[in-house]
């Protein structure tokens, strides 16, 4: 199990979906997971300390768990099948038993940020789907493309005018 934290929640202008980026606590590996807009809001509203007049659905879930005498031990993104990530919520009941409950990663993360528990990703999933930011070379290449563009400009035209 690799412990991660929520690094960012990103919005893409072309899609109603959002991406939550989980970052390995101990290295520069990132796992992006597509999530729905309401769940993304549930995560960001909490992380940005936005005050809401009434409890949102994930607040209600967290209150229910607490009132029922249970605690959230951790959440884990534990599987990926047919391009869908799976997660589990691991609860400890008031009798000291551990329960594992099937969840979407988005819901698990929205709950984890509220209770402050650890978020884990399965080792294999992080190894196969974790992404490392490209090295400096990548940036120069991008700049290279820009240089290529510049060099195609015929600046002589400017003088002619």
């Amino acid at each position, binding site marked *: 199990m690799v412990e991660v934290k929520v690094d960012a929640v990103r919005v893409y202008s072309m899609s109603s979906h959002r991406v939550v980026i989980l970052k390995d606590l101990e290295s520069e590996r990132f796992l992006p997971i597509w999530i729905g807009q*309401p*769940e993304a809001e*549930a995560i960001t509203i909490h992380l940005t300390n936005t005050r809401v*007049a*009434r*409890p*949102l*659905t*994930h607040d*209600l*879930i967290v*209150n*229910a*768990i607490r*009132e*029922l*005498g*249970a605690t959230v031990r951790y959440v884990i993104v534990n599987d990926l099948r047919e391009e*869908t990530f*799976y997660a589990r*919520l691991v*609860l400890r*009941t008031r009798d000291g038993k551990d*329960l594992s*409950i*099937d*969840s*979407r990663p988005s*819901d698990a993360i929205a709950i984890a940020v509220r209770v402050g528990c650890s978020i884990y990703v399965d080792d294999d999933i992080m190894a196969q789907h974790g992404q490392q930011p490209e090295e400096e070379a990548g940036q120069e290449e991008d700049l290279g493309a820009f240089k290529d563009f510049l060099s195609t400009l015929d600046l002589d035209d400017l003088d002619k005018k």
Partner: protein
Amino acid sequence: MIEMKIESIRISLMSTNQQVVILKELDGERRLPIFIGKTEGDAISFHLNGVSVPRPLTHDLAASILSKLNARLSYVLINDLRNQHFYASIVMHLGEDEQEIVLDARPSDAIAIAVRLDCPIFVDEHVLEVAGVELTDEAEADSKEDLGAFSDFISSLDLSDLDKDK
């Protein structure tokens, strides 16, 4: 406390982010319309329509957490209306001593969980008095008037014109 059933969930043409859930008295004609968010509206209607979803929605997760923690849902109650916000509680019992646990919730979440765990939905009498609407004879009279306008229109048509064209 008055028991209600979900009569319909309506979408608003003016706002794509809002829906209206209409609760109707089980033993009466009063209805209570409550504006709710689209996500919560979908959560209610998907379940009532038996729409199968590949992965548990947030309210499915909430229901499975309550079940797995052995909470017995007794009922949900829409118990207040303040500053144009409806308030609700989820009332459940836990353990052999039947300890009562009451959770503060938005009506939309309470209803989405109630339909999943099959528990009754109640509204406090004073909330229904303030915000309930009744389809009265007047409303029916209105609809006849509407028909009246249609009749007026029909009687204004000069059907003899039809013959002239032929």
